[in-house]
Structure formats: C-alpha cells, structure tokens
C-alpha cells in the first residue's frame, strides 16, 4: 500500500471518528459518565407500567402483590404507594440485608413488585440489584415498576394513590 494512500486512510479515519463522536463528545465533556445503573439487566417482560399497577390495585378480587420500595427512606416517608413497605436501598449492603430478611420466609412463587423512582430509570442504582437479588433467591414472579423519570412525575403527579409516613 503506497505511503500517501495510507496517510490519507488514517486521516479519513480520524476525521470520521471525530464526526461520529462529536455530539457525544460534547455531551461527555459536560457530563462525566456515571456507572451503569443495572436497570438494563431487567428483562422488559418483568416490567410493570404505573397505569397497569394502579389498575391492579383498584381491581377487586385481584391478587395483590407485595410492593417493596427499594430506594430512599426519606422519599418513602414523603410519599409511597399505599400498602408498600420500605425494604432499603438496593444499592447498599444494609438495603440488601433488609430486603433479603423481608422476603426470606416467603414462598418463591410470591407476587412481588419492586420500585424506587429516585432518579431517571437508567440512573437508578437500586432496582437492578434488588431485582437480581430476588431472582437469585429463586423468586419467580418479580415485577419492577417502570418509572421513567421519578416517582413524583410518573406516579404521584399522575394522580395515582400515595400514602405518607415511615
């Protein structure tokens, strides 16, 4: 391969990389990359939408899930889904212990819904580890409430029922 052609190839490759990554590079300069949150590992089939859960909660005779909030206790105290229990942040060892202890005696076929809503879905550090823990313990009917932005916007502000207190 002639030298000038090789140089040209390298130059074009560099330019192409810069062009393709220009927008992302700009954004990355402004936003340091946070670590992956783990929500991407939750299968889509295991997600439950807010509307779906709200409808379930209002369906007489329907099997009610055990709803566990696996995020901030302070947020839980402000507002949570009625009947939900605080189970500790899934991203911290104390939270994992609390969650493990809460479900340890339950039958592995128990219907469980996990939620957090502390941050935008792909930034939530809690639901991914909590889901993996329950799956690892053998629970087969675990759903995760999909809150795209946060619990306020995707549940409370939609007029769905909330309770307060620890």
């Amino acid at each position, binding site marked *: *391969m*002639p030298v000038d*052609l*090789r140089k*040209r*190839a*390298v130059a*074009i*490759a*560099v330019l*192409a*990389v810069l062009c*393709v*990554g220009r*927008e*992302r*590079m700009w*954004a*990355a*300069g*402004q*936003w*340091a*990359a*946070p*670590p*992956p*949150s783990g929500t991407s590992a939750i299968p889509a089939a295991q997600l439950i939408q807010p509307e779906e859960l709200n409808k379930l909660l209002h369906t007489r005779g329907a099997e009610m899930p055990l709803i566990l909030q696996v995020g*901030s*206790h*302070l*947020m839980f*105290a*402000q*507002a949570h889904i009625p009947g939900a229990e605080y189970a500790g*942040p899934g*991203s*911290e060892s104390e939270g994992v212990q609390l969650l493990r202890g809460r479900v340890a005696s339950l039958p592995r076929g128990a219907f469980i819904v996990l939620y957090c*809503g*502390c*941050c*935008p879905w*792909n*930034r939530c*550090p*809690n639901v991914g580890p909590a889901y993996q823990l329950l799956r690892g313990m053998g629970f087969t009917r675990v759903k995760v409430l999909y809150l795209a*932005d*946060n*619990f*306020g*916007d995707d549940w*409370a502000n939609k007029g769905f029922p909330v309770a*307060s207190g620890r």
Partner: protein
Amino acid sequence: MQAGGSVAPWPRTGRRAPLCALFVAFIAAPLVPPFAYAGVPHPRRVIACAARVGNPLLNKPAPDFALVDLNGQTLRLAAYRGKVVLLNFWATWCAPCQVEMPVFAAWQRQHGPQGLQVIGISMDDDAAPARRLVERLKLNYPVAVGDERIGVRYGGVLGLPLTFLIDRDGVARARFQGETDMKVIENRLKTLLAQRRAQK
C-alpha cells in the same frame, strides 16, 4: 478470496483503503471512549425535561426553612434575601447529582460576587455519606441534610436531582427536575442575577 472461506487481508486493494477506513471508523467510533458512553442524555431530551418547569411553587415565595448544615451552622433560606439562591436537592446515590455539584461550586466562585448563593440539601437518609461526598467534592457552599418536611414543603422531592432558582425577593422562579442541560440553568441564573431586587 482464499480457499476454505478465510477472509482476505484488509485492505484488499490500495484504492479501497480510504473507504474501508471510513467504514471501520464509523462502526468502531461508538466503542471508543468517550464516544462509548451511551447513557449521555441527548441535548434535545434534556431541553425537553428542562421545559417541564410548571409547578405550583413557581412565582410564589419559596418556602422558608431552617436546617443545621454540615458545619453545625443554622441554614435559613430567609437569611439570603437579596441574593439569587440556587437551591439544589441531591443525594449521594444520585449519579446525575454528582455531575452537577462541581458545576454549582464553580458557579458559586464565578457568580458569587454578583449575588449568587448556592445551597445544597442532601436527601440522604444519613449525614455520614453526604458529609464524605461534600468533603471529596470540596463544595464551597452550605449543605444540610434534609428531611421529609422540607420535601413536602417543596412540593415533594420525589426524584433527583431537583433544583430551584429563587430570585432576590425570595420568589421561586424556576424548577429543574431530573437531568438538565446546565446551560439552560446557567442562562436562567444569569437573567436573575441581572435583575435588581423589587422589594426592600
């Protein structure tokens, strides 16, 4: 092509080299840091988030509060009347918050002389991790650990990050929920800094 299905060495001809290089670069670019970070919020999406600032608290006096900051001092919002206050709710488990906070510290240095006061309210359940992060980031503005009362007073802090801009008269003028383009916040901040106090 060689026998047995093996692929010929790339590039096969000199003339195709630039085109092949271009193709490979386009394919490989997303794999090369910093281009590889797929989670970077797209500016258009960010602006859409920032535009959703409608909130019952806006254009009304920001709820006053008195908390004890991490240095043991009383942190009262009303004490900053006359300044433009950037009130930021954050937590150590909130990754986007930790991206914003060093920027807020830089703004405090840059715009402090013009009357900016940044206040941080940690929504962590414990003070210890908040204190560690504040020390690590060397924040130059007061930070207190919040509670559910301040959360409720501010309309429910049910998702982070959450930032309010409060004008020199103590009126909440903007609310930014979630990941927001920092330029949008800074532009609004500069507008407020340029305004004089209406009431004295």
